[in-house]
């Protein structure tokens, strides 16, 4: 169970790093800056990670 959870979390890290990479690559390819909407997506993903940490802390004895 623990190992499965750890792997899920690591996959989440990988997904986020890839999403940010793709976002930056797309902006560079289109020769434009990152838009506010794209930045909001990144902020939303970070907020979700924070919430998961808070939930984990609250579940700890």
């Amino acid at each position, binding site marked *: 169970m623990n190992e499965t959870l*750890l792997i899920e*979390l*690591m996959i989440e*890290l*990988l997904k*986020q790093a890839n999403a940010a990479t793709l976002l930056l690559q797309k902006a560079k390819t289109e020769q434009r800056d990152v838009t506010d909407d794209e930045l909001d997506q990144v902020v939303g993903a970070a907020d979700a*990670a924070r919430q998961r940490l808070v939930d*984990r*802390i609250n579940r700890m004895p």
Partner: protein
Amino acid sequence: MRKVCGLAAIVVALGFASACSMLDQLKPKSFNERLVLAYTTLNYVWTSAEVLLKSGKITKVDAQNLLEQTDKIRIDLDLAREFNRLKRPEAEDKLSQAITTLEAVKDYLDKRGKAPEDAPILSPHLERPTPEEKAK
């Protein structure tokens, strides 16, 4: 099953390192690109902290201290973004300051992930409470 999980964890970790390397290679230059990298690093820090907490590499108190520190970084990043939107000159300093602090926290977590559980905590902001403090 354990071996399979361990192998999968190594593969995913290598994949993440590779994705991070790709992010670095893109060399974010504009303000918004640097903000993307900063918020993604913050995401990495919070997710790593969750992993380390779950695996017992950091304690609940460590995680709470880390959350407190990173919440301040988050506020600085939000302020930097807002200052930039308003074309205020403080934006650059605010972002640089937040990134520097964020890198320190990330380094701490990376070391903590590799270190044995009784290794000393490097960041003065993340010191564990002494037994006397705990008793209070």
